[in-house]
C-alpha cells in the first residue's frame, strides 16, 4: 500500500464527507432548535442504525465481485457522481447558478417545521426530517467510502477519512451551535468532483484492463487535466455571463 494510493483516498473521502455531514448537520440542528433535541437525535440515530444495517448486509457482497468488474462498475458510478458534482461546482463558481447557502437551507427547514408546530405529529415529522437528511447524506458518504476505498482494498482508510470528517464537523458544530455556513462548500465540491471523476476514469480504465503509466500517479495527472479544463470552463462561462449582464 503506497502513500500515492492512501493520500488521494483519504483526502477524497474526508472532503466529500465534510460536505455531506455539514448538509445533514444543518437539518438536524434546525430540527433540534425548532422542536427539541429528542426528535433530532431519534431521527439521526434511526438513520445511522439503518445505514449500519445496510452496510452490514451489502458490504460482504462486494467481496464476492471480481476486482475487474468491481473497478469497472464502481468507476462508472464514480464518473457519473463526480461529473455531476463537477458540473454543478463549475456552474456555481462561474456565477451561473447560486451558491448553496447553509443559512438559507437552515431557514427553510426551520420555517417548514415552525408551520407544523400546531400539528399533533410535529415531533414525529421533525424526527422524520432529521432521519431523511441523515439517511440521504449518509448514503452518499457510504457510497463515497465504498467507491474510493473498495477498488484498492482501502475501504477502512476511506472510512477513517469519513469518520474524521464527521467528528470534525460535529465538534465545530457543537462549539458554534449554528449552521456551518462559512465552510467553502463550492470549493470543496469542486475539489471532490475533480477527485471522484479522476478516480472514476482511472478505475473504469483499469476495469477495462488498462495499465496506466505511473500506476496510481495517473490519478493525479487525470486530476490536473480535469482541473485545467474546469478552470477554463469557469473562465469562459464567467465571461459569457458578464457579457449577458452588460447587454
Amino acid at each position: 500500500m503506497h502513500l500515492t494510493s492512501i493520500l488521494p483516498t483519504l483526502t477524497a473521502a474526508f472532503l466529500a464527507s465534510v460536505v455531506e455531514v455539514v448538509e445533514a448537520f444543518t437539518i438536524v440542528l434546525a430540527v433540534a432548535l425548532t422542536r427539541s433535541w429528542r426528535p433530532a437525535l431519534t431521527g439521526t440515530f434511526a438513520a445511522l442504525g439503518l445505514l449500519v444495517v445496510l452496510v452490514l448486509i451489502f458490504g460482504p457482497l462486494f467481496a464476492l465481485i471480481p476486482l475487474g468488474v468491481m473497478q469497472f462498475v464502481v468507476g462508472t458510478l464514480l464518473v457519473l457522481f463526480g461529473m455531476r458534482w463537477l458540473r454543478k461546482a463549475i456552474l456555481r463558481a462561474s456565477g451561473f447558478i447560486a451558491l448553496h447557502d447553509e443559512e438559507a437551507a437552515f431557514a427553510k427547514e426551520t420555517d417548514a417545521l415552525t408551520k407544523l408546530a400546531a400539528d399533533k405529529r410535529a415531533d414525529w415529522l421533525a424526527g422524520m426530517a432529521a432521519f431523511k437528511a441523515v439517511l440521504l447524506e449518509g448514503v452518499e458518504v457510504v457510497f463515497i467510502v465504498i467507491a474510493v476505498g473498495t477498488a484498492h482494498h482501502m475501504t477502512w482508510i476511506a472510512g477513517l477519512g469519513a469518520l474524521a470528517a464527521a467528528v470534525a464537523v460535529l465538534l465545530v458544530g457543537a462549539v458554534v451551535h449554528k449552521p456551518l455556513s462559512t465552510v467553502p462548500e463550492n470549493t470543496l465540491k469542486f475539489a471532490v468532483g475533480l477527485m471522484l471523476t479522476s478516480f472514476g476514469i482511472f478505475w473504469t480504465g483499469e476495469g477495462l484492463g488498462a495499465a496506466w503509466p505511473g500506476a496510481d500517479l495517473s490519478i493525479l495527472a487525470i486530476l490536473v487535466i480535469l482541473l485545467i479544463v474546469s478552470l477554463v470552463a469557469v473562465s469562459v462561462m464567467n465571461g459569457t455571463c458578464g457579457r449577458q449582464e452588460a447587454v
Partner: protein
Amino acid sequence: MQFIKSIFSELLGLFVDDGNLALQVLGLIVIVALAVRLGGLMPLAGAGLLLLGCIVILALSLRRMLRR
C-alpha cells in the same frame, strides 16, 4: 409511501442531475468497453478515449446550460 418515493428519487439524483450528461457518459463507457473487448482497441487507448470523452461531454453539458 410518498416518503419512500422521495428517498428513492433523491438517491437516483445522486447520479443523475442533467439526464443528457448521465446518458452520454453511460453511452461513452459502453462504446469504449465494446471497442476494447470486441474491437481490439488497446485498453490504455480506451482509457484515454474515456478521459477525452468525459471532457467533451462536460463541455457540451455546460454549453447547453449557457444556451438556456
